[in-house]
Protein backbone atom coordinates (compact mmCIF):
# COMPACT_ATOMS: atom_id res chain seq x y z
CA UNK A 1 0.00 0.00 0.00
CA UNK A 2 2.89 2.28 0.83
CA UNK A 3 4.43 1.64 -2.56
CA UNK A 4 1.15 2.49 -4.24
CA UNK A 5 0.88 5.73 -2.29
CA UNK A 6 4.44 6.69 -3.26
CA UNK A 7 3.63 5.88 -6.88
CA UNK A 8 0.50 8.03 -6.80
CA UNK A 9 2.44 10.86 -5.21
CA UNK A 10 5.16 10.59 -7.86
CA UNK A 11 2.55 10.76 -10.65
CA UNK A 12 0.88 13.72 -9.01
CA UNK A 13 4.23 15.49 -8.55
CA UNK A 14 5.06 14.84 -12.18
CA UNK A 15 1.87 16.55 -13.31
CA UNK A 16 2.22 19.34 -10.76
CA UNK A 17 5.84 20.17 -11.57
CA UNK A 18 5.04 20.19 -15.29
CA UNK A 19 2.24 22.65 -14.58
CA UNK A 20 4.51 24.83 -12.43
CA UNK A 21 7.12 24.80 -15.18
CA UNK A 22 4.55 25.93 -17.72
CA UNK A 23 3.33 28.75 -15.49
CA UNK A 24 6.91 30.02 -15.40
CA UNK A 25 7.77 29.75 -19.08
CA UNK A 26 4.47 30.60 -20.79
CA UNK A 27 4.14 34.17 -19.37
CA UNK A 28 7.46 34.99 -21.05
CA UNK A 29 5.70 34.69 -24.41
CA UNK A 30 3.73 37.83 -23.55
CA UNK A 31 6.68 39.85 -22.28
CA UNK A 32 8.78 42.20 -24.34
CA UNK A 33 11.90 40.52 -25.74
CA UNK A 34 15.20 41.90 -24.55
CA UNK A 35 16.90 41.50 -27.91
CA UNK A 36 18.27 44.71 -29.38
CA UNK A 37 17.90 44.82 -33.16
CA UNK A 38 21.53 45.86 -33.42
CA UNK A 39 22.20 47.45 -36.79
CA UNK A 40 18.86 49.26 -36.63
CA UNK A 41 18.83 49.93 -32.90
CA UNK A 42 21.98 51.25 -31.25
CA UNK A 43 22.36 50.54 -27.57
CA UNK A 44 22.53 53.49 -25.20
CA UNK A 45 26.19 54.25 -24.58
CA UNK A 46 27.24 56.15 -21.44
CA UNK A 47 29.24 59.36 -22.09
CA UNK A 48 32.27 57.93 -20.33
CA UNK A 49 32.50 55.15 -22.93
CA UNK A 50 36.01 54.92 -24.41
CA UNK A 51 35.05 54.01 -27.94
CA UNK A 52 36.48 55.03 -31.29
CA UNK A 53 38.05 58.48 -31.17
CA UNK A 54 36.26 61.70 -31.99
CA UNK A 55 38.55 64.33 -33.46
CA UNK A 56 38.18 68.09 -33.78
CA UNK A 57 40.43 68.69 -36.72
CA UNK A 58 40.64 72.51 -36.64
CA UNK A 59 41.81 72.56 -33.03
CA UNK A 60 44.74 70.19 -33.63
CA UNK A 61 48.18 71.80 -33.70
CA UNK A 62 50.05 68.61 -34.62
CA UNK A 63 52.11 68.69 -31.43
CA UNK A 64 52.54 64.90 -31.54
CA UNK A 65 51.83 64.61 -27.77
CA UNK A 66 49.19 61.95 -28.28
CA UNK A 67 51.47 59.88 -30.52
CA UNK A 68 54.27 60.12 -27.97
CA UNK A 69 52.21 59.03 -24.99
CA UNK A 70 50.45 56.19 -26.82
CA UNK A 71 51.61 52.95 -25.15
CA UNK A 72 51.17 50.90 -28.32
CA UNK A 73 52.29 53.50 -30.86
CA UNK A 74 49.10 53.34 -32.85
CA UNK A 75 48.97 57.06 -33.76
CA UNK A 76 50.91 58.36 -36.78
CA UNK A 77 50.96 62.10 -37.39
CA UNK A 78 52.44 64.01 -40.29
CA UNK A 79 52.29 67.81 -40.20
CA UNK A 80 52.71 70.89 -42.37
CA UNK A 81 54.29 74.01 -40.88
CA UNK A 82 55.88 74.64 -37.51
CA UNK A 83 54.85 75.52 -33.97
CA UNK A 84 51.31 76.60 -33.14
CA UNK A 85 50.39 77.22 -36.77
CA UNK A 86 51.18 73.66 -37.77
CA UNK A 87 48.33 71.76 -39.44
CA UNK A 88 48.09 67.99 -39.77
CA UNK A 89 48.37 66.21 -43.13
CA UNK A 90 47.72 62.71 -41.86
CA UNK A 91 46.47 61.60 -38.47
CA UNK A 92 46.17 57.86 -38.56
CA UNK A 93 45.05 55.65 -35.70
CA UNK A 94 45.64 51.93 -36.15
CA UNK A 95 42.71 50.28 -34.41
CA UNK A 96 44.29 46.88 -34.71
CA UNK A 97 46.71 48.14 -32.07
CA UNK A 98 44.69 50.70 -30.12
CA UNK A 99 43.70 49.54 -26.64
CA UNK A 100 41.27 52.42 -25.92
CA UNK A 101 43.17 53.55 -22.82
CA UNK A 102 42.36 57.25 -23.42
CA UNK A 103 45.95 58.22 -22.61
CA UNK A 104 46.09 60.14 -25.90
CA UNK A 105 43.34 62.46 -24.70
CA UNK A 106 45.16 63.42 -21.50
CA UNK A 107 48.17 65.46 -22.69
CA UNK A 108 46.42 67.14 -25.64
CA UNK A 109 46.98 70.90 -25.17
CA UNK A 110 43.97 71.89 -27.24
CA UNK A 111 41.64 69.09 -26.20
CA UNK A 112 41.00 68.10 -29.80
CA UNK A 113 40.98 64.32 -29.42
CA UNK A 114 38.27 62.56 -27.46
CA UNK A 115 37.02 59.07 -26.82
CA UNK A 116 33.67 58.77 -28.58
CA UNK A 117 30.64 56.52 -28.17
CA UNK A 118 31.16 54.48 -31.35
CA UNK A 119 32.14 50.89 -30.88
CA UNK A 120 31.74 49.11 -34.20
CA UNK A 121 34.54 48.93 -36.72
CA UNK A 122 34.98 46.06 -39.12
CA UNK A 123 37.19 45.40 -42.13
CA UNK A 124 38.38 42.56 -44.28
CA UNK A 125 42.06 43.46 -43.94
CA UNK A 126 44.18 45.00 -41.21
CA UNK A 127 44.64 48.12 -43.34
CA UNK A 128 40.90 48.75 -43.27
CA UNK A 129 40.96 49.38 -39.54
CA UNK A 130 43.59 52.11 -39.86
CA UNK A 131 41.47 55.27 -39.80
CA UNK A 132 42.73 58.61 -41.10
CA UNK A 133 41.41 61.43 -38.93
CA UNK A 134 42.82 64.13 -41.23
CA UNK A 135 40.05 63.15 -43.61
CA UNK A 136 37.17 65.59 -43.15
CA UNK A 137 34.76 63.10 -44.71
CA UNK A 138 35.20 60.82 -41.71
CA UNK A 139 31.98 61.03 -39.65
CA UNK A 140 33.97 61.12 -36.43
CA UNK A 141 35.99 64.17 -37.52
CA UNK A 142 34.48 67.54 -36.67
CA UNK A 143 35.65 70.91 -37.99
CA UNK A 144 35.63 74.15 -36.01
CA UNK A 145 32.05 75.27 -36.55
CA UNK A 146 30.49 71.82 -36.18
CA UNK A 147 28.97 70.82 -32.88
CA UNK A 148 29.59 67.29 -31.66
CA UNK A 149 26.10 65.71 -31.52
CA UNK A 150 26.69 63.75 -28.35
CA UNK A 151 28.13 64.30 -24.92
CA UNK A 152 31.90 64.00 -24.69
CA UNK A 153 33.64 63.54 -21.36
CA UNK A 154 37.01 65.23 -21.11
CA UNK A 155 39.92 63.04 -20.15
CA UNK A 156 42.29 66.02 -20.24
CA UNK A 157 44.65 66.66 -17.33
CA UNK A 158 44.36 70.43 -17.73
Amino acid at each position, binding site marked *: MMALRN*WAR*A*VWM*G*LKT*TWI*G*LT*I*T*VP*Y*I*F*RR*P*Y*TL*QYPEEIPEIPPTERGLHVFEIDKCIACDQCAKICPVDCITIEAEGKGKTARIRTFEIDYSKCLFCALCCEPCPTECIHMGPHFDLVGYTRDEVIIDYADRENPRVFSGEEKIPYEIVSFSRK
Partner: protein
Amino acid sequence: MILAETPPFSSHIAGWLAGLVGMEPNWLFSAVGALVVAAVILLLVVTPVGLGGVYLERKLAGRMQNRRGPNRVGPYGLLQSLADGVKLLAKEDILQRGADSPLFRFAPYLVFMAAFAGFVVLPFAPGLVAADLDVGLFYFLALIALETVGIVMAGWSSNNKWSLLGAMREVAQVVSYELPLGLAAMCPALAVGSLSLVAITDYQAGPIWKWLLWRDIYWAIAMVPAFLLFYTAGLAAAKRAPFDLPEAESELTAGFHTEYSGMRFGMFFLPEYAMMLSLSAVTSVLFLGGYHDPIGLSAPGKLFDGVWWWGLLWFFLKTTFLFLTQIALRWTLPRIRIDQVMYLCYKVLLPIGMGSLLLTAALRLLG
Protein backbone atom coordinates in the same frame (compact mmCIF):
# COMPACT_ATOMS: atom_id res chain seq x y z
CA MET B 1 -9.56 0.32 -48.68
CA ILE B 2 -12.72 -0.26 -46.72
CA LEU B 3 -14.71 2.93 -46.83
CA ALA B 4 -17.46 3.24 -44.24
CA GLU B 5 -19.16 5.72 -46.53
CA THR B 6 -17.63 7.61 -49.42
CA PRO B 7 -17.09 11.16 -48.11
CA PRO B 8 -18.91 13.93 -50.05
CA PHE B 9 -15.87 15.72 -51.48
CA SER B 10 -14.31 12.50 -52.73
CA SER B 11 -17.59 11.26 -54.19
CA HIS B 12 -18.16 14.60 -55.94
CA ILE B 13 -14.80 14.28 -57.62
CA ALA B 14 -15.42 10.58 -58.34
CA GLY B 15 -18.77 11.37 -59.91
CA TRP B 16 -17.31 14.23 -61.95
CA LEU B 17 -14.47 12.05 -63.18
CA ALA B 18 -16.84 9.20 -64.07
CA GLY B 19 -19.04 11.64 -65.95
CA LEU B 20 -16.00 12.94 -67.78
CA VAL B 21 -15.08 9.45 -68.94
CA GLY B 22 -18.71 8.48 -69.41
CA MET B 23 -18.78 5.53 -67.05
CA GLU B 24 -20.72 4.57 -63.97
CA PRO B 25 -18.87 5.62 -60.75
CA ASN B 26 -17.18 2.54 -59.33
CA TRP B 27 -14.51 1.84 -56.71
CA LEU B 28 -11.72 2.98 -59.04
CA PHE B 29 -13.20 6.46 -59.30
CA SER B 30 -13.78 6.54 -55.54
CA ALA B 31 -10.13 5.72 -54.99
CA VAL B 32 -9.05 8.43 -57.44
CA GLY B 33 -11.40 10.89 -55.74
CA ALA B 34 -9.93 10.05 -52.34
CA LEU B 35 -6.43 10.45 -53.78
CA VAL B 36 -7.28 13.87 -55.18
CA VAL B 37 -8.68 15.05 -51.85
CA ALA B 38 -5.65 13.65 -50.03
CA ALA B 39 -3.29 15.40 -52.44
CA VAL B 40 -5.17 18.69 -52.15
CA ILE B 41 -5.16 18.46 -48.35
CA LEU B 42 -1.46 17.66 -48.44
CA LEU B 43 -0.66 20.57 -50.73
CA LEU B 44 -3.00 23.27 -49.49
CA VAL B 45 -3.31 22.46 -45.81
CA VAL B 46 -0.53 20.29 -44.51
CA THR B 47 2.55 21.78 -46.15
CA PRO B 48 1.75 25.42 -45.28
CA VAL B 49 0.67 24.36 -41.82
CA GLY B 50 3.85 22.31 -41.40
CA LEU B 51 6.00 25.23 -42.48
CA GLY B 52 3.91 27.51 -40.29
CA GLY B 53 4.45 25.09 -37.43
CA VAL B 54 8.21 25.39 -37.79
CA TYR B 55 7.86 29.19 -37.81
CA LEU B 56 5.54 29.15 -34.81
CA GLU B 57 7.87 26.91 -32.86
CA ARG B 58 10.89 29.10 -33.50
CA LYS B 59 8.97 32.29 -32.76
CA LEU B 60 7.51 30.96 -29.52
CA ALA B 61 10.83 29.45 -28.48
CA GLY B 62 12.37 32.86 -29.01
CA ARG B 63 9.72 34.66 -27.01
CA MET B 64 9.93 32.15 -24.17
CA GLN B 65 13.66 32.86 -23.97
CA ASN B 66 13.23 36.64 -24.17
CA ARG B 67 14.43 36.62 -27.78
CA ARG B 68 12.50 37.75 -30.83
CA GLY B 69 12.76 34.61 -32.94
CA PRO B 70 12.99 34.81 -36.73
CA ASN B 71 12.23 38.34 -37.97
CA ARG B 72 14.51 38.93 -40.93
CA VAL B 73 12.92 37.12 -43.88
CA GLY B 74 9.64 38.73 -44.84
CA PRO B 75 7.28 40.60 -42.49
CA TYR B 76 7.76 39.30 -38.93
CA GLY B 77 10.04 36.63 -40.38
CA LEU B 78 7.04 34.81 -41.86
CA LEU B 79 8.98 33.56 -44.86
CA GLN B 80 11.77 32.07 -42.73
CA SER B 81 10.60 28.47 -43.20
CA LEU B 82 10.35 28.99 -46.93
CA ALA B 83 13.87 30.42 -47.04
CA ASP B 84 15.10 27.44 -45.03
CA GLY B 85 13.40 25.12 -47.49
CA VAL B 86 15.13 26.81 -50.42
CA LYS B 87 18.42 26.58 -48.55
CA LEU B 88 17.91 22.86 -47.92
CA LEU B 89 17.13 22.30 -51.61
CA ALA B 90 20.35 24.05 -52.61
CA LYS B 91 22.53 22.04 -50.21
CA GLU B 92 24.67 19.14 -51.30
CA ASP B 93 23.18 15.67 -50.84
CA ILE B 94 25.99 13.80 -49.12
CA LEU B 95 26.26 10.02 -49.10
CA GLN B 96 29.14 9.16 -46.82
CA ARG B 97 31.47 6.22 -47.34
CA GLY B 98 30.34 3.05 -45.58
CA ALA B 99 26.66 3.92 -45.66
CA ASP B 100 24.19 1.36 -46.93
CA SER B 101 23.25 3.34 -50.01
CA PRO B 102 19.75 2.10 -50.92
CA LEU B 103 18.49 2.04 -47.35
CA PHE B 104 20.11 5.37 -46.56
CA ARG B 105 18.43 6.96 -49.55
CA PHE B 106 15.04 5.38 -49.01
CA ALA B 107 14.67 6.00 -45.27
CA PRO B 108 13.67 9.70 -45.46
CA TYR B 109 10.93 8.92 -47.97
CA LEU B 110 9.47 6.27 -45.70
CA VAL B 111 9.42 8.63 -42.73
CA PHE B 112 7.91 11.41 -44.84
CA MET B 113 5.32 9.09 -46.30
CA ALA B 114 4.33 7.63 -42.93
CA ALA B 115 3.98 11.02 -41.27
CA PHE B 116 1.90 12.54 -44.04
CA ALA B 117 -0.22 9.47 -44.77
CA GLY B 118 -1.79 9.97 -41.35
CA PHE B 119 -3.58 13.04 -42.66
CA VAL B 120 -5.65 10.89 -45.01
CA VAL B 121 -8.00 9.76 -42.26
CA LEU B 122 -8.26 13.06 -40.37
CA PRO B 123 -11.75 14.57 -40.53
CA PHE B 124 -10.90 18.25 -41.05
CA ALA B 125 -14.51 19.30 -41.41
CA PRO B 126 -17.87 17.66 -42.09
CA GLY B 127 -17.30 15.82 -45.37
CA LEU B 128 -13.74 17.05 -45.73
CA VAL B 129 -11.92 13.79 -45.18
CA ALA B 130 -9.92 11.97 -47.81
CA ALA B 131 -10.88 8.48 -46.70
CA ASP B 132 -13.27 7.69 -43.87
CA LEU B 133 -11.79 4.29 -43.04
CA ASP B 134 -13.62 1.89 -40.76
CA VAL B 135 -10.29 1.36 -39.05
CA GLY B 136 -9.08 4.98 -39.21
CA LEU B 137 -7.70 5.08 -35.69
CA PHE B 138 -5.93 1.76 -36.13
CA TYR B 139 -4.51 2.95 -39.46
CA PHE B 140 -3.18 6.07 -37.79
CA LEU B 141 -1.50 4.15 -34.98
CA ALA B 142 -0.02 1.73 -37.51
CA LEU B 143 1.55 4.63 -39.40
CA ILE B 144 3.36 5.73 -36.25
CA ALA B 145 4.96 2.29 -36.18
CA LEU B 146 5.81 2.58 -39.87
CA GLU B 147 7.66 5.83 -39.24
CA THR B 148 9.80 4.01 -36.69
CA VAL B 149 10.89 1.58 -39.41
CA GLY B 150 12.10 4.49 -41.53
CA ILE B 151 14.01 5.95 -38.63
CA VAL B 152 15.66 2.64 -37.80
CA MET B 153 16.63 2.31 -41.46
CA ALA B 154 18.17 5.77 -41.39
CA GLY B 155 20.07 5.19 -38.18
CA TRP B 156 21.32 1.73 -39.04
CA SER B 157 22.37 2.45 -42.62
CA SER B 158 24.29 5.60 -41.72
CA ASN B 159 27.35 3.74 -40.45
CA ASN B 160 27.64 6.20 -37.60
CA LYS B 161 27.59 5.48 -33.89
CA TRP B 162 25.36 8.48 -33.09
CA SER B 163 22.85 7.46 -35.74
CA LEU B 164 22.77 3.88 -34.50
CA LEU B 165 22.32 4.97 -30.89
CA GLY B 166 19.54 7.30 -31.96
CA ALA B 167 17.81 4.54 -33.90
CA MET B 168 18.11 2.16 -30.94
CA ARG B 169 16.55 4.72 -28.65
CA GLU B 170 13.81 5.33 -31.19
CA VAL B 171 12.92 1.64 -31.25
CA ALA B 172 13.02 1.31 -27.48
CA GLN B 173 10.95 4.45 -27.02
CA VAL B 174 8.34 4.39 -29.76
CA VAL B 175 7.63 0.67 -29.58
CA SER B 176 7.16 0.97 -25.81
CA TYR B 177 4.97 4.04 -26.04
CA GLU B 178 2.72 2.43 -28.58
CA LEU B 179 1.24 0.39 -25.73
CA PRO B 180 -0.06 3.34 -23.67
CA LEU B 181 -0.92 5.20 -26.87
CA GLY B 182 -3.02 2.30 -28.08
CA LEU B 183 -4.64 1.78 -24.67
CA ALA B 184 -5.52 5.46 -24.42
CA ALA B 185 -6.90 5.50 -27.97
CA MET B 186 -8.99 2.44 -27.18
CA CYS B 187 -10.97 4.27 -24.48
CA PRO B 188 -12.84 6.64 -26.84
CA ALA B 189 -13.07 3.91 -29.47
CA LEU B 190 -14.68 1.61 -26.91
CA ALA B 191 -17.00 4.33 -25.71
CA VAL B 192 -18.18 5.15 -29.23
CA GLY B 193 -18.02 1.62 -30.54
CA SER B 194 -16.18 2.56 -33.71
CA LEU B 195 -12.61 3.04 -34.93
CA SER B 196 -13.68 5.49 -37.64
CA LEU B 197 -12.51 8.99 -36.77
CA VAL B 198 -15.60 10.49 -38.40
CA ALA B 199 -17.90 8.31 -36.30
CA ILE B 200 -15.98 9.25 -33.15
CA THR B 201 -16.26 12.94 -34.04
CA ASP B 202 -19.97 12.80 -34.80
CA TYR B 203 -20.63 10.95 -31.55
CA GLN B 204 -19.46 14.14 -29.81
CA ALA B 205 -21.78 16.49 -31.73
CA GLY B 206 -23.34 19.09 -29.53
CA PRO B 207 -22.24 21.43 -26.76
CA ILE B 208 -18.98 21.17 -24.84
CA TRP B 209 -20.24 18.63 -22.28
CA LYS B 210 -20.87 16.14 -25.07
CA TRP B 211 -17.13 15.85 -25.68
CA LEU B 212 -15.73 12.47 -24.76
CA LEU B 213 -13.32 14.07 -22.31
CA TRP B 214 -16.11 14.86 -19.82
CA ARG B 215 -19.25 13.31 -21.24
CA ASP B 216 -20.47 12.68 -17.75
CA ILE B 217 -18.77 12.54 -14.39
CA TYR B 218 -18.06 8.79 -14.41
CA TRP B 219 -16.68 8.92 -17.91
CA ALA B 220 -14.43 11.81 -17.00
CA ILE B 221 -12.73 9.60 -14.39
CA ALA B 222 -11.67 7.27 -17.20
CA MET B 223 -11.27 9.80 -20.00
CA VAL B 224 -9.23 12.56 -18.38
CA PRO B 225 -6.38 10.15 -17.55
CA ALA B 226 -6.75 8.63 -21.01
CA PHE B 227 -6.51 12.09 -22.55
CA LEU B 228 -3.34 12.97 -20.61
CA LEU B 229 -1.99 9.53 -21.44
CA PHE B 230 -2.65 9.90 -25.16
CA TYR B 231 -1.11 13.34 -25.13
CA THR B 232 2.04 12.21 -23.28
CA ALA B 233 2.47 9.03 -25.29
CA GLY B 234 1.87 11.10 -28.43
CA LEU B 235 4.70 13.41 -27.45
CA ALA B 236 6.93 10.38 -27.08
CA ALA B 237 5.76 8.87 -30.37
CA ALA B 238 6.43 12.15 -32.18
CA LYS B 239 9.89 12.32 -30.51
CA ARG B 240 9.15 15.70 -28.99
CA ALA B 241 10.89 17.05 -25.91
CA PRO B 242 11.04 15.90 -23.17
CA PHE B 243 11.11 12.60 -25.11
CA ASP B 244 13.44 13.71 -27.92
CA LEU B 245 16.04 11.07 -27.12
CA PRO B 246 16.41 9.68 -30.65
CA GLU B 247 17.79 12.99 -31.86
CA ALA B 248 19.10 14.38 -28.55
CA GLU B 249 21.27 17.07 -30.12
CA SER B 250 23.34 17.64 -26.98
CA GLU B 251 24.38 13.98 -26.68
CA LEU B 252 24.04 12.39 -30.13
CA THR B 253 24.81 15.34 -32.46
CA ALA B 254 21.51 14.85 -34.29
CA GLY B 255 20.77 11.22 -33.50
CA PHE B 256 19.40 9.15 -36.34
CA HIS B 257 19.70 11.93 -38.93
CA THR B 258 23.29 12.94 -38.09
CA GLU B 259 24.57 11.99 -41.54
CA TYR B 260 21.73 13.48 -43.55
CA SER B 261 22.10 16.76 -45.38
CA GLY B 262 20.11 18.90 -47.75
CA MET B 263 16.57 17.94 -48.65
CA ARG B 264 16.97 14.46 -47.18
CA PHE B 265 17.40 16.16 -43.82
CA GLY B 266 14.32 18.24 -44.62
CA MET B 267 12.46 14.98 -45.18
CA PHE B 268 13.11 14.15 -41.53
CA PHE B 269 12.54 17.66 -40.28
CA LEU B 270 9.12 18.38 -41.78
CA PRO B 271 7.52 15.03 -40.77
CA GLU B 272 8.31 15.83 -37.14
CA TYR B 273 5.96 18.79 -37.37
CA ALA B 274 3.49 16.84 -39.47
CA MET B 275 3.49 14.18 -36.77
CA MET B 276 2.94 16.73 -34.02
CA LEU B 277 0.11 18.21 -35.99
CA SER B 278 -1.62 14.95 -36.85
CA LEU B 279 -1.27 13.72 -33.26
CA SER B 280 -2.80 16.97 -32.00
CA ALA B 281 -5.58 16.53 -34.54
CA VAL B 282 -6.26 12.94 -33.48
CA THR B 283 -6.21 13.97 -29.81
CA SER B 284 -8.78 16.66 -30.54
CA VAL B 285 -10.91 14.18 -32.49
CA LEU B 286 -10.75 11.53 -29.77
CA PHE B 287 -11.34 13.70 -26.73
CA LEU B 288 -12.23 17.25 -27.69
CA GLY B 289 -14.97 16.79 -30.24
CA GLY B 290 -12.98 17.22 -33.46
CA TYR B 291 -14.71 19.66 -35.77
CA HIS B 292 -17.67 20.28 -33.46
CA ASP B 293 -17.74 23.66 -31.77
CA PRO B 294 -18.19 24.00 -27.98
CA ILE B 295 -21.55 25.79 -28.22
CA GLY B 296 -23.30 23.08 -30.17
CA LEU B 297 -24.04 25.02 -33.35
CA SER B 298 -22.71 22.20 -35.49
CA ALA B 299 -24.95 19.56 -33.94
CA PRO B 300 -27.45 17.87 -36.31
CA GLY B 301 -30.29 20.21 -37.14
CA LYS B 302 -28.55 23.29 -35.78
CA LEU B 303 -27.36 26.42 -37.61
CA PHE B 304 -23.96 25.19 -38.77
CA ASP B 305 -24.80 21.51 -39.21
CA GLY B 306 -22.47 20.21 -41.90
CA VAL B 307 -21.02 23.61 -42.77
CA TRP B 308 -17.48 22.79 -43.76
CA TRP B 309 -15.73 26.09 -42.98
CA TRP B 310 -17.23 26.25 -39.48
CA GLY B 311 -15.97 22.74 -38.80
CA LEU B 312 -12.56 23.52 -40.28
CA LEU B 313 -12.26 26.59 -38.06
CA TRP B 314 -12.93 24.66 -34.85
CA PHE B 315 -10.82 21.73 -35.92
CA PHE B 316 -7.86 24.01 -36.46
CA LEU B 317 -8.46 25.98 -33.28
CA LYS B 318 -8.37 22.81 -31.19
CA THR B 319 -5.45 21.32 -33.08
CA THR B 320 -3.47 24.54 -32.87
CA PHE B 321 -4.11 24.78 -29.15
CA LEU B 322 -2.72 21.28 -28.57
CA PHE B 323 0.15 22.04 -30.97
CA LEU B 324 1.02 25.17 -28.97
CA THR B 325 1.02 23.23 -25.71
CA GLN B 326 3.43 20.77 -27.29
CA ILE B 327 5.74 23.63 -28.20
CA ALA B 328 5.43 25.18 -24.75
CA LEU B 329 6.26 21.83 -23.14
CA ARG B 330 9.33 21.44 -25.31
CA TRP B 331 10.77 24.73 -24.08
CA THR B 332 9.78 24.06 -20.49
CA LEU B 333 10.85 20.54 -19.64
CA PRO B 334 14.39 19.17 -19.82
CA ARG B 335 15.06 15.96 -21.73
CA ILE B 336 14.66 12.90 -19.51
CA ARG B 337 17.05 9.94 -19.44
CA ILE B 338 16.32 6.76 -21.39
CA ASP B 339 15.76 4.76 -18.19
CA GLN B 340 13.32 7.42 -17.01
CA VAL B 341 11.56 7.20 -20.36
CA MET B 342 11.16 3.47 -19.88
CA TYR B 343 10.10 3.88 -16.25
CA LEU B 344 7.47 6.42 -17.23
CA CYS B 345 6.14 4.16 -19.94
CA TYR B 346 5.95 0.83 -18.19
CA LYS B 347 5.41 1.82 -14.58
CA VAL B 348 3.29 4.94 -14.89
CA LEU B 349 1.51 5.25 -18.23
CA LEU B 350 0.77 1.58 -18.83
CA PRO B 351 -1.03 0.97 -15.48
CA ILE B 352 -3.01 4.19 -15.93
CA GLY B 353 -3.93 3.15 -19.46
CA MET B 354 -5.07 -0.28 -18.30
CA GLY B 355 -7.10 1.29 -15.51
CA SER B 356 -8.75 3.74 -17.88
CA LEU B 357 -9.56 1.03 -20.37
CA LEU B 358 -10.98 -1.22 -17.67
CA LEU B 359 -13.12 1.59 -16.31
CA THR B 360 -14.37 2.55 -19.77
CA ALA B 361 -15.23 -1.06 -20.50
CA ALA B 362 -17.07 -1.37 -17.20
CA LEU B 363 -19.01 1.85 -17.83
CA ARG B 364 -19.84 0.69 -21.32
CA LEU B 365 -21.02 -2.65 -19.97
CA LEU B 366 -23.17 -0.99 -17.31
CA GLY B 367 -24.58 1.37 -19.93
